[in-house]
């Protein structure tokens, strides 16, 4: 009975570790090889504050969680900033260093032999002693962890994480600080692991560095992968199976000396086979989505009242009060790549409510100019002003908030997310993207989410996609995906919209729709800048055209003026 209770408790600890690593690996898309190290650190922090300072273990757990999460976050942040491989590098190095450090710091950790006599939990004078006594406490713990993790992953915060896994640059262009989200989820996962470590230490009344070695970290990774990345229920399955297998090995006659290598062999082979033949794990991410994938909303059956603020007529109505004063000024922008001047002393001014087109032969610097203006590239020289405020050094993820948003030539909608989620993600400054507000001001998050939903349907309706709201974006046609990208761009609420080849690759029937939308947007006061190869489109919609060649502006004027100039035609068509 006690053996069973103990095995169950142990399983719960590993379920918690697996779920928390799944936040980092499955949702954050980062391989942390140091999960066991953080587990162990958490155990030590709690041991030290309860044994040396005599604190209650209920105080020890949160201290362990917070201290470990902050410590891990600060160390990991520089590595998360660079590239995905660097976090692997960091966590392996950290794992090995911490393990050796713990082994050699006898007076703090007890070295090899660890520390005995970690205080038992005491509730109102009642000492929790046997594994069976512990079981309800463990059950409560795992329930709490699941509640937190499910809330996080199903929130607007989780939505952004999903977007990040699909396309980091697209998420950045929608005004989200990708690094911040990654660091936060890393800290949450790490903190939960530390919590598990501290409970484990109080449960076994013993802590040693042995539980924090690389093999344990890899075991937890194997559990996540086996169960299914980005599915929290799969993690429980994965942890359960990989606890049971070695327990069963114990009953094999004569296997006692071979258990460690056999275990390693089994995990290793399982990892290889799963990554190759079933990378989504036993329980895939969209396991229950398939059943529910019926259409939620039907066109005309608008689920919300459209209030005055978001009434389509207010936006599409002609507003003659729009003055065409310059709103964005680009002065002398330059950028070189290894000696090649991609953009050279480029000047541009966008008038409010006007459509400006950048044209020129391939490689003339149009896309580089876009990247410079939206902060995706840092200019070598020059300034950018938005309403007389300098924004040259505003990072890309702050641009939509500052009023400038861009679309991508290669569309970059989030293929694996629903049409609606694609739109919802684009809303700026959502409370639900802050975990503090998510847990401490849930009513505000709920209210905002309702309003955002309303807004999302408004924009979807505008591009004619509202009846496809609950479909996965990858099921849309290419033209529909481009429309979705436009709706997503509008949702950012930015004043200035930079569209990179909005009509390329779609057939002529759709081109007309794109032109109508762009003209309507300009009439409603949005400032538009497009890069476009289709000269018909340029002539039809643009007020001003900039002709670029070799990184410089060589002519400016109306479409008719420029097209009448034979010299430009020569450059453009290369004849």
């Amino acid at each position, binding site marked *: 009975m006690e053996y069973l209770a103990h095995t169950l408790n142990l399983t719960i600890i590993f379920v918690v570790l697996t779920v928390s690593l799944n936040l980092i690996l499955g949702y954050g*898309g980062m391989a942390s090889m140091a999960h066991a190290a953080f587990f162990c650190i958490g155990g030590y922090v709690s041991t030290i504050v309860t044994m040396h300072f005599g604190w209650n273990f209920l105080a020890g757990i949160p201290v362990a969680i917070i201290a470990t999460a902050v410590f891990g976050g600060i160390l990991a942040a*520089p590595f998360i900033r*660079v590239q995905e491989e660097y976090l692997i590098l960091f966590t392996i190095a950290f794992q090995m260093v911490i393990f050796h450090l713990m082994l050699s710091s006898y007076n703090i950790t007890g070295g090899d032999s660890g520390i005995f006599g970690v205080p038992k939990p005491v509730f109102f004078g009642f000492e929790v002693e046997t594994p069976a006594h512990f079981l309800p406490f463990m059950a409560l713990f795992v329930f709490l962890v699941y509640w937190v993790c499910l809330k996080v992953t199903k929130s607007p915060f989780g939505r952004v994480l999903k977007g990040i896994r699909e396309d980091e640059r697209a998420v950045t262009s929608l005004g989200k600080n990708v690094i911040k989200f990654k660091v936060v989820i890393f800290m949450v996962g790490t903190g939960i692991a530390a919590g598990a470590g501290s409970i484990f230490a109080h449960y076994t009344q013993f802590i040693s560095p042995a539980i924090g070695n690389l093999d344990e970290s890899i075991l937890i990774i194997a559990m996540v992968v086996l169960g299914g990345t980005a599915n929290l229920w799969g993690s429980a399955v994965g942890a359960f199976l990989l606890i049971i297998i070695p327990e069963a090995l114990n009953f094999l006659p004569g296997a006692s000396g071979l258990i460690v290598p*056999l275990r390693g062999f089994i995990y290793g082979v399982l*990892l290889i086979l799963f990554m*190759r033949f079933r990378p989504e794990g036993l329980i895939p991410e969209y396991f229950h989505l398939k059943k529910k994938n019926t259409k939620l909303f039907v066109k005309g059956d608008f689920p919300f009242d459209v209030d005055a603020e978001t009434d389509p007529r207010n936006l599409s109505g002609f507003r003659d009060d729009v003055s065409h004063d310059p709103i964005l000024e680009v002065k002398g922008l330059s950028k070189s790549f290894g000696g090649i001047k991609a953009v050279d002393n480029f000047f541009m001014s966008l008038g409010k409510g006007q459509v400006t087109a950048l044209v020129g032969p391939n490689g003339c610097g149009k896309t580089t100019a876009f990247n410079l203006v939206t902060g995706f590239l840092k200019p070598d020289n020059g300034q950018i002003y938005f309403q007389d405020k300098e924004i040259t050094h505003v990072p890309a993820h702050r641009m939509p908030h500052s009023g400038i948003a861009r679309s991508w030539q290669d569309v970059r909608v989030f293929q694996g997310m629903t049409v609606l989620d694609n739109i919802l993600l684009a809303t700026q400054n959502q409370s639900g993207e802050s975990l503090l507000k998510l847990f401490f001001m849930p009513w505000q998050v709920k209210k905002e989410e309702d309003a955002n939903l309303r807004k999302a349907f408004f924009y979807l309706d505008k591009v004619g996609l509202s009846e496809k709201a609950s479909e996965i974006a990858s099921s849309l046609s290419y033209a529909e995906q481009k429309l979705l990208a436009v709706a997503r761009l509008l949702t950012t609420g930015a004043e200035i919209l930079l569209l990179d080849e909005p009509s390329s690759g779609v057939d002529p029937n759709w081109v007309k729709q794109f032109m109508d939308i762009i003209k309507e947007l300009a009439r409603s006061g949005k400032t538009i800048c497009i890069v476009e190869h289709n000269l018909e489109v340029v002539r039809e919609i643009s007020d001003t055209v900039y002709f670029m060649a070799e990184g410089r502006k060589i002519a400016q004027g109306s479409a008719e003026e420029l097209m009448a100039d034979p010299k430009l035609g020569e450059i453009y068509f290369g004849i």
Partner: protein
Amino acid sequence: MGLFLQLLVRGLIIGSLYALLGVSWGIIYNTTRTFHFAHGFVYTLAAYFILVPMGLSLPLIPSLLVGLTVAMLAGCAIEYFAYRPMREQNASQLSVFLTAMGIMIAGQSVILLIFGPDSRPLEGFPEKVISLGPITFTTIDLFIVFLVWAVIICLFQFLARTKAGMMIRAVASNPEKATFIGIDSKKIYLLVFAIGSLLAGIASFLGALDRPANPNIGLHALLISFITVFLGGVGNLKGTVIGGLILGVAESLVIMVLPTEYKMVVTFFILFMVILIKPEGLMGKKSA
């Protein structure tokens, strides 16, 4: 001063080994961008396939040939049977890495199951102590340094002057364009896995001369090799060599002020500071 010089020399010897390790992993990573975690397994495998034939009283040179051949075959097999099919499936970097980790763990466990956990020294190599003023080292140290630099110079000459070397560099700098001019990147990938695994085998041999081999040596070797690569700058093998020397010297010199257990901490600290201040590595180029 005497101690300092002694430690510096010791650091340069170890650093040479680190440089070789770094280059062995770096040539694979720079070219294929595969986080080849199983490199550590190849390293351990090489040591055992040198030591076991020697234990069966085969002379050194044939044993060495056996070990190096096994290492190359293992590296190529991992690329051919594990990484390539995953790339063709368009698997994410992360999945490829997890596969590599699976190979490393399973392989290491197999070595442990077959050969047991005991350390095996590489014996029978003539060792004499040489003293130059305050500095002492052994003939083995001298041999290690000589061989490492001979191998590294050969490798750089190979990359700079031969057609195959240029093809490797072409694939490393721009895989797409390399394909356009008719380079078969699959073959080049196999080639760099062969070269990298050969170098790992040589490093493993030299490492076994320095200290006995056991089933876990691969992990430390792996850690050192990729820390060296990221420290020096991805895509820059010269940077990797310098990174290896810096690590070796730093680990050695730190004994003057800290207990030996802190060796790894210093390695980590250097890595952390470099990534913090210059994320692209000491000699890396900023990516656009």
